[in-house]
């Protein structure tokens, strides 16, 4: 088990710089979640941690040891590749056991490990198949199995559950959590699933274009997004953003006065220029008074419904539990409490207050 | 001791003949390591020989003939076998033309095996009878006969497609048209004046005329298939060395009755020879040198000369042998050999590498073949090219 320390790591492919100085440090046994838009460099970072690629500059240490140039096989890392990278010539069982075999684990123990992960991943009946005869989700689970069979210093997961159905995903997520609680192996986990990110991670690093935008606990990230980008990126549907002008100590957008509390008011004192006023859809409620608007879209997702409303301050989406009884075209009023508002400086896009 | 012998007598009669030699040596307590490499009239064998010599691993004896012997001797790799030659009185039993070839700077370096006569004409009497032609003795008669054969729907001349076959025909024409002296001057000494002379032009024209009497499928044909055409009567005659006889005999034909052998037109008084010989290489091991000497002696021994040549269709190189067991063609050949040797009209065959060094030989053959195969080429052009080729060193 070792802490992971990434210092000022840069990576270029030819002229384009993919990673622009990444700094991340986690404690031994922590569970780090990497999130960020497609193509921001998550997989690239993972493969440098794994030793499959070398940074153009910067260092990576695991525990006390600088591993930047250490060959992959000496790092004792297990990884789930985004592209699976299954050995097509081996059966599922052999794929899973390969890493153990290479580390000279006795046969009996290997078989036991295979059985264990096969049970965990529900692929017991597929053990004798070759990857070519598996479905997409089954392949992904084999890729997982290959990593989980081992007991490495560091786990790297690159979107390991993306091709699984929701039910299986919940189960797998629970298994991973359990495993982590038991073994306390330091883990880096890339995901696009907010639930995974929020429930699994001790810490989350939100990346964008090769730069870490915010690095903190899940709660930090969700309730105190450091930048407009993080605020919009985390949470689905995305946070509603209203560009507002200063009007005295308050804020006005398209003639609508936006509610603020005292803390926010004082924080705003130092900001020149426009301010972005953000509200998460789940913090909007429908009431008899408040910001008036017209219903433009109603999307039921089952347990809740996403409702889009056209208001004077722009289109806003609200997330309401259960069914929504009103019809598109009806007039409604939106309400919220100022504590839920997130404020960003429009110029720097940094959080205010 | 041990003798390793490189040769290309690999099949049928030849192999049997070589075995006789092997038996003789084994009787003397030597071991015989056979190194047979067939193909291309010894081309492959030469390649092997060279690399063996280069790797410092020469065989005891190798089948080399004609001027090639001199070239090898010049490289300083051949052994002096005067000891055997003296003891066996080779000078006495070999015609000078032949023994000269076997010597380098006056010392024997090789032992001759046999003599082939190259200037033979083989004819199918049946075919001639059908066409009402008679077996020719000079080139005018040849063309007359050829015309008649052609008229009777028989291919007049059977011919094959290697450059030595072309040249066999060419040298017979040269000998027949130009005579022995011309032949020697032009094709042995490669005298520029003679090559550029009118006789050569005539030779070339005559030669090209023969082409007209062959069938168009000749290129690429093996000589023995050409012989088979004569045997079957598809063709009337063939200009070929005495090895062709083997084909006739194997097909159950009798000389004089089913086929006739005569000297090529106009060459009855001359003899182009092709002598096979074994060059002896320098060896380090004493015992092997002894074996090598025994080999040389055995080659020239009358018993071997008889067995071998009976099998091969050629005649013994050793003069004054009893030829009772030989057939009429061989007997005629042997008689002509002695006679022409005296008359100084015994000439080496260029086609078979007896006359000129390989480089020049190759170049000349190239020209002759090209001339034969290229309808558009005039005799004059060929003459010019021939002269140039003769200068090849």
């Amino acid at each position, binding site marked *: 088990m070792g802490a992971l320390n990434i210092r000022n790591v840069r990576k270029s492919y030819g002229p384009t710089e993919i990673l622009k100085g990444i700094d991340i440090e986690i404690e031994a046994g922590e569970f780090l979640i990497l999130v960020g838009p497609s193509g921001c460099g998550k997989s690239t970072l993972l493969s440098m941690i794994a030793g499959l690629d070398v940074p153009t500059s910067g260092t990576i240490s695991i525990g006390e040891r600088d591993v930047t140039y250490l060959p992959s096989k000496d790092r004792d890392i297990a*990884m789930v590749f985004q592209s699976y990278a299954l050995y*097509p010539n081996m059966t599922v069982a052999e794929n899973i056991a390969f890493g153990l075999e*290479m580390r000279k684990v006795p046969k009996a123990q290997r078989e036991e490990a295979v059985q264990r992960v096969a049970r965990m991943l529900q692929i017991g009946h597929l053990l004798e198949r*070759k990857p070519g005869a598996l479905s997409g989700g089954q392949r992904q689970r084999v890729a997982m199995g290959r990593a989980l069979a081992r007991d490495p210093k560091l786990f790297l997961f690159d979107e390991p559950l993306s091709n699984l159905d929701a039910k299986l995903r919940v189960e797998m997520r629970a298994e991973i959590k359990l495993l982590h609680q038991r073994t306390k192996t330091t883990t880096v986990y890339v995901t696009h699933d907010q639930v995974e990110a929020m429930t699994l991670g001790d810490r989350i690093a939100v990346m964008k274009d090769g730069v870490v935008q915010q690095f903190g606990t899940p709660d930090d990230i969700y309730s105190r997004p450091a930048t407009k980008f993080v605020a919009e990126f985390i949470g689905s549907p995305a946070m509603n953003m209203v560009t507002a002008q200063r009007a005295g100590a308050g804020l006005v957008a398209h003639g609508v006065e936006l509610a603020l509390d005292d803390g926010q008011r004082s924080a705003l004192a130092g900001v020149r220029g426009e301010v972005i006023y953000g509200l998460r859809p789940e913090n909007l409620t429908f009431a008899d008074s408040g910001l008036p608007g017209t219903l433009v879209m109603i999307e039921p997702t089952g347990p809740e419904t996403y409702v889009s409303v056209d208001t004077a301050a722009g289109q806003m989406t609200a997330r309401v539990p259960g069914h929504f009884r009103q019809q598109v075209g009806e007039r409604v009023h939106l309400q919220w409490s100022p504590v839920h508002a997130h404020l960003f400086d429009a110029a720097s896009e940094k959080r205010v207050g | 001791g041990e003798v390793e012998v490189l040769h290309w007598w690999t099949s049928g009669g030849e192999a049997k003949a070589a075995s006789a030699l092997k038996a003789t040596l084994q009787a003397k307590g030597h071991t015989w390591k056979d190194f047979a490499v067939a193909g291309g009239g010894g081309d492959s064998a030469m390649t092997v020989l060279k690399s063996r010599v280069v790797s410092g691993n020469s065989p005891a004896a190798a089948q080399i003939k004609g001027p090639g012997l001199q070239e090898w001797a010049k490289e300083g790799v051949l052994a002096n076998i005067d000891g055997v030659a003296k003891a066996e009185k080779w000078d006495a039993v070999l015609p000078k033309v032949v023994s000269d070839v076997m010597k380098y700077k006056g010392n024997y370096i090789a032992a001759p095996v046999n003599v082939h006569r190259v200037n033979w004409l083989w004819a199918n009497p049946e075919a001639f009878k059908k066409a009402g032609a008679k077996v020719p003795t000079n080139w005018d008669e040849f063309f007359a006969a050829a015309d008649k054969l052609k008229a009777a729907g028989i291919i007049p001349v059977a011919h094959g497609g290697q450059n030595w076959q072309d040249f066999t025909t060419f040298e017979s024409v040269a000998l027949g048209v130009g005579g022995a002296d011309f032949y020697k001057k032009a094709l042995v000494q490669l005298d520029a004046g003679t090559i550029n002379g009118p006789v050569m032009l005539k030779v070339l024209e005559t030669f090209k005329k023969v082409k007209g009497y062959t069938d168009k499928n000749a290129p690429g044909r093996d000589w023995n298939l050409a012989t088979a055409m004569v045997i079957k009567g598809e063709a009337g005659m063939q200009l070929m060395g005495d090895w062709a006889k083997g084909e006739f005999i194997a097909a159950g034909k009798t000389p004089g009755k089913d086929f006739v052998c005569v000297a090529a037109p106009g060459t009855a008084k001359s003899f182009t020879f092709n002598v096979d010989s074994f060059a002896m290489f320098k060896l380090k091991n004493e015992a092997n040198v002894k074996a090598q000497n025994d080999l040389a002696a055995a080659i020239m021994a009358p018993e071997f000369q008889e067995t071998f040549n009976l099998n091969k269709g050629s005649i013994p190189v050793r003069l004054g042998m009893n030829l009772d067991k030989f057939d009429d063609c061989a007997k005629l050949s042997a008689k002509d050999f002695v006679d022409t040797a005296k008359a100084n009209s015994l000439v080496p065959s260029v086609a078979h590498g007896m006359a000129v060094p390989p480089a020049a030989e190759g170049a000349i053959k190239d020209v002759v073949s090209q001339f034969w195969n290229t309808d558009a080429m005039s005799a004059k052009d060929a003459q010019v090219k021939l002269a140039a080729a003769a200068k090849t060193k």
Partner: protein
Amino acid sequence: MLTTSLKDMDQVRAGSLLSLPTSPTLDAWRKAWSSACTGTDCGGLQPFFWNSILMAVPAVMISTLIGSLNGYVLSKWKFKGSELMFALMLFGVFMPMQVVLLPMSQVLGWFGIASSLTGLITVHVIAGIPSTTLFFRNYYIGLPDELIKAATLDGAGFWQIFRRIVLPLSVPIMVVTLIWQFTNIWNDFLYGVVFSGADSKPITVGLNNLANTSSTVKEYNVDMAAAMIAALPTLFVYVVAGKYFVRGLTAGAVKG
């Protein structure tokens, strides 16, 4: 060819080459195999045949193995200069074999393996390396790099990746290389005749000696039978090895 080899000599001489044998006989085959003369020895092709096997099997194995290793390194473990190295090796493909005969025999002479089976095998291996390397390298280029990465992560070293991942995925190209090398080596005449010893001569030399006569009667039926015998092992290799042209080796390996 087959028909001719089943004829007897009389029929060969009499008939057209394309006619069918009237009374098929295996005599020619028997003769070619065990009693035809190839020089002063009349043991047929049999000894040559075994020589060839002794030579071809190790030479093919060694050169194929070396080729696949080279290909593996040059495609999956590239280093500075490896492309240049490959290009330099590749040019060897174009070396005319005639050029190397003499110097090669000199070198073999130095090492004391001239005119021996070992020498011949060595020559074939050296001559084969450029093409086998070429085949494997260019095939391996197409294998997904991710597989190598995954295996490194799993703790596999250079050799283990080769043995466990790369080799199993190279079956088709292996077949091709085996076919190529076997055919070349089995049918090679020039090296065989030049570098072998008196009693290690390969079958092509035997066949050549048997079929090429400078001045005596040709036995076409025996020649043909001999040629057939000489060509049988290759047929065998083709049929056996050819089975392993399996399909879709990398199916399911990666997404993308």
